[in-house]
């Protein structure tokens, strides 16, 4: 990688100040995405500001109606957290399937959703569960947070500090893996909340999205088998070496049905 400087601030305020004073500074959390990019010399930050040990970003807490997960919480911590498993078991399952064990030991929920890779797992849970994202400046609903592939509502210098999930016992996540990268070729998080069903799909290509038509179908008492791909907007899908847009769309519908079946 290119030459750069590294800082490990002791507080959120210090971290924000460091990011504010150097335009070329880049926040790093678990670094499991960023490090390979830096090694490939596809980014040239002047400074890395390490968020992983900030006390303000740590911890898993019960909150009214749900659970709050600090942004620096690793995937492994979420996967093995008794609190998370008690409140949103599907979220623990999802976290336990991200990457591989070594990656789960360092990668964090805050880093994942701030990066919003179009094939990442976490954004689907955040969106499907209607979680809210707390940042250093504000609180955002999931719908407002994700704004497209690799794109979020975060402004320069703004940091995700926590994600708050509602309790939900009827939810499931299934990842249909890309045979090479093992990222989600398609990933589906489905949840049944008091407000109704919510289904979020990741891996389509343009970033995570909700399948409203399927949600409405279920809310109207429709059967799982009636959820078919012809109701899925093809505009959500792109193709690559591992699957055409048409194939991804088809698989998405299949995995949605399987995820819903797995919920019961």
């Amino acid at each position, binding site marked *: 990688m290119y*030459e750069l400087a590294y800082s490990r601030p002791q507080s959120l305020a210090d971290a924000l100040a460091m990011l504010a004073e150097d335009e070329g500074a880049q926040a790093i959390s678990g670094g499991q995405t960023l490090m390979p990019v830096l090694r*490939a010399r596809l980014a040239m930050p002047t400074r890395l500001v390490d968020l992983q040990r900030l006390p303000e970003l740590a911890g898993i807490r019960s909150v009214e109606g749900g659970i709050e997960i600090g942004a620096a919480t690793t995937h492994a911590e979420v996967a093995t957290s008794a609190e998370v498993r008690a409140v949103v078991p599907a979220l623990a399952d999802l976290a336990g399937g991200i990457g*591989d064990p070594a*990656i789960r*030991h*360092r990668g964090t929920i805050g880093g994942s959703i701030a990066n919003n890779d179009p094939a990442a797992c976490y954004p689907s849970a955040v969106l499907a569960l209607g979680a809210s994202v707390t940042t250093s400046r504000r609180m955002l609903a999931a719908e407002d947070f994700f704004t497209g592939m690799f794109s979020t509502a975060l402004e320069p210098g703004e940091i995700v500090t926590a994600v708050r999930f509602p309790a939900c016992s009827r939810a499931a996540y299934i990842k249909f893996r890309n045979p090479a990268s093992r990222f989600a070729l398609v990933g589906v998080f489905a949840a049944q909340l008091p407000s109704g069903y919510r289904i979020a799909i990741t891996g389509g290509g343009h970033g995570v999205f909700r399948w409203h038509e399927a949600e409405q179908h279920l809310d109207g008492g429709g059967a799982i088998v009636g959820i078919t791909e012809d109701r899925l907007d093809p505009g959500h899908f792109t193709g690559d070496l591992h699957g055409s847009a048409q194939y991804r769309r088809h698989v998405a519908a299949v995995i949605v049905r399987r995820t819903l079946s797995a919920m019961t």
Partner: protein
Amino acid sequence: MTDITLTVNGRDHVVETEDRTLLVHLLRDELRLTGAHVGCDTSQCGACTVHVDGKAVKSCTMLAVQADGADILTIEGLANGRELHPMQAAFHEHHGLQCGFCTPGMIMMAIDIARRHPQPDAATVRAELEGNLCRCTGYHNIVKAVVAGAQRMGEPA
């Protein structure tokens, strides 16, 4: 350049390093612990796996400066003199290695698996080895070795 302090295999080190140096390069080039290998650039092969504060991580996906203050265990620190760690012994016993290049990372990951899953079955081991590539063994004997090694780690010494 930054001075960092870290414990590696029970020994304390103070090392001056470039901020951009990867942990794996610090271990290999500065501390001359060449057991952790670099097999890819995209954090997927796992040949560089070491334990940082008791957890398996890919040392090619972490800066050395991020390990400031950390306790690190590498393949070189496993055996007690000539007495092998049970997982090392299991890899030998079950022929869980051929060229040996992926082996240090495999063993470090295997120990981590055994800690999290004290009596893993073959399917669990296969799933948990997703981030460690081996080109020689077809994983068949590695899986057997990890199952047996985990078993032995759980037995009283």
